[in-house]
């Protein structure tokens, strides 16, 4: 059982210039046993601080942290039954790979034969058997990454902590390591807590994702849930690439008036928006829900707009196109067969079934 639980955890730092800075504000969540949980958010949002508090490398200012039902507030990192993989790998440069892997076990006074067996096993899992006698400086970034993961595996911890482990790798290697980490999680059956600023990594790896901003947890949900039903404009804008479009509008009956067009809100959704009749709102629509009319086999009779495209970007399989509604820039994404051209006027259908409305003041989803 390796559940990790945060109860009202607050972390404050003393900053020489800014005074007291609250890095994590009143965090409450439970990481389930054997779950792959990803913390995501922009830099300085408190995600790494949260991870370091779980590791015991930082002490929280107040609140309680539990690992597997045990209160660990005052427990030393080595006794928390955790292992951590660092962003810069943190391999000991003066030791061989084998010594790196054995270091923690040796400190824990593990018998030699057991250390050998564990290293052998981890090396086989990560296919690093041929690297054991080398020094870290002789390895490539991807290999170093593997060793860092290996050092965590040999400890056989109940919780793995990953601090942006893929951010120093090139794009191709990152994708490969992502798949490997996912497989590794299934194979080891341990709880994994993973910190990243890359929402693609978060979406692909996480069973659940914690989105943080400014020390506050914005939403904890599965990747699908985050994408389909973001709690607020921050989550909606952070998850998804390109991000969700936000367009200023005003609700009037079932009509949504934007600066240039009037759109029709589907009947099923109107009930939710009752309180915002005749009010300013922000319409949120994902790029893929703006569809070029020439790709549709039926001709919708409403929610069709005809803007002039500013730029069309060709990404191979798909096109990104940009236009304006009032002052808001809108991004759309369609298959490459739509054959859109820059500076042309095109008919676009907006799939309002997938729309979201946000309160412009609180930024919360309505």
């Amino acid at each position, binding site marked *: 059982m390796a559940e990790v639980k945060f109860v009202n955890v607050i972390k404050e730092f003393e900053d020489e210039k800014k005074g007291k800075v609250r890095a994590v504000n009143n965090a409450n969540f439970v990481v389930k046993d054997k779950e792959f949980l990803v913390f995501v958010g922009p830099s300085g949002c408190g995600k790494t601080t949260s991870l370091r508090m779980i590791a015991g490398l930082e002490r929280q200012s107040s609140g309680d942290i539990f690992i597997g039902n045990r209160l660990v507030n005052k427990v030393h990192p080595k006794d928390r039954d955790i292992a951590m993989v660092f962003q810069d790998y943190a391999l000991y440069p003066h030791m061989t790979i084998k010594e790196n892997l054995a270091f*923690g076990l040796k400190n824990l006074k593990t018998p030699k034969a057991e250390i050998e067996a564990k290293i052998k096993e981890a090396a086989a899992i990560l296919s690093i058997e041929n690297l054991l006698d080398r020094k870290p400086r002789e390895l490539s970034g991807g290999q170093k990454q593997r060793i860092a993961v290996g*050092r965590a595996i040999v400890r056989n911890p109940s919780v793995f902590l990953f601090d942006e482990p893929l951010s120093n790798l090139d794009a191709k290697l990152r994708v490969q390591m992502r798949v490997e980490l996912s497989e590794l999680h299934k194979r080891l059956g341990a709880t994994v807590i993973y910190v990243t600023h890359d929402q693609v990594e978060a979406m692909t790896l996480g069973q659940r994702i914690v989105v943080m901003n400014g020390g506050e947890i914005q939403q904890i949900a599965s990747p699908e849930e985050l994408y389909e039903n973001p709690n607020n404009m921050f989550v909606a804008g952070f998850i998804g690439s390109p991000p969700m479009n936000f367009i200023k509008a005003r609700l009037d009956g079932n009509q949504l008036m934007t600066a240039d067009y009037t759109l029709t809100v589907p009947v099923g959704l109107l009930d939710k928006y009752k309180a915002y009749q005749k009010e300013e709102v922000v319409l949120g629509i994902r790029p893929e829900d703006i569809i070029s009319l020439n790709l549709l086999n039926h001709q919708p009779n409403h929610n069709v707009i005809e803007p002039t495209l500013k730029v069309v970007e060709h990404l191979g399989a798909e096109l990104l196109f940009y236009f304006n509604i009032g002052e808001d820039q809108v991004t759309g994404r369609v298959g490459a067969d739509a054959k859109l051209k820059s500076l042309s006027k095109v008919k676009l259908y907006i799939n309002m079934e997938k729309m979201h409305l946000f309160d412009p003041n609180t930024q919360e989803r309505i």
Partner: protein
Amino acid sequence: MELKSVTDPQYQILLDEKKDFRRKTYKKIGLTIIYIFLVLWAVFTFVPLLWMLSSSFKDSSAITAVPPELLPKKPTLDAYKRIFEVGGMARWFLNSTIVASISTIINVFFASLAGYAFSKLKFPGRNTIFWVLLSSMMIPGQVTLIPLYILVVNTLQLENTYFGLIVPGMVSVGSIFLMKQFMSSLPSSLIDAGRIDACSEFGIFRKIILPMAKPGLAVLGIFTFVGHWNNFFWPFLITNTNSMRTLQVGLTSFRFENLQDYGAMMAGAVCSAVPMIIVFLALQKYFLRGITIGAVKG
């Protein structure tokens, strides 16, 4: 071939070649000037050393001969014989070796511990203590010399002992500063990794930090050893018997009221320079790496 205008491609090529030639010539002239300067500099610094070496093999009349002899016409080992037989060179040499070696070991140990604490550990008042220490570097040594003498000689009664020679120089703020700067460049994540890998705090220092700090320790070791080896004034104050003198102090005993034994002094200086050269050559690898500390990432 006739070149009609500046836009003619042939003309452009010619122009480029000309520019290229001019650039290369300037570069050559520049390098030549630099080399001449460096050679002069090398001669300038090397001549006194050569003079010391050659004088140590001269007899007393040859040393003061006009015009000076660059190389001794009748080389002799008399001066060396004198410093060992009359002066007690062997004993001074031993004293200097003991004092400089022990001071270096203690200095490196304390400075690396303090440097580690100041650069990597968080504790209240860390910056304040460090600034107080740093500001003490601004106090000239001469100001503290008399209080230090009173403390060591009158209070601690350490006159004319190895302790008296070593204790005041056991740790210096300069060394702490050097080690702090060096250790700041070591990644903190390694310390975190050590903590998670169940290493004790002192274990982290001994097993992770110290091995990585080797270049810094070597530089500090060289600096401290040279400093203590060449130190004259403090040993001069604190010792009063020939058997406790260090090498630098011992050499002065060849200066008499009306007469100076240059040959013996030069021979002593040669003997005193040899260990320095050995230390430098032995640690040169680290020393050169140490100079570029922080210059190269990774």
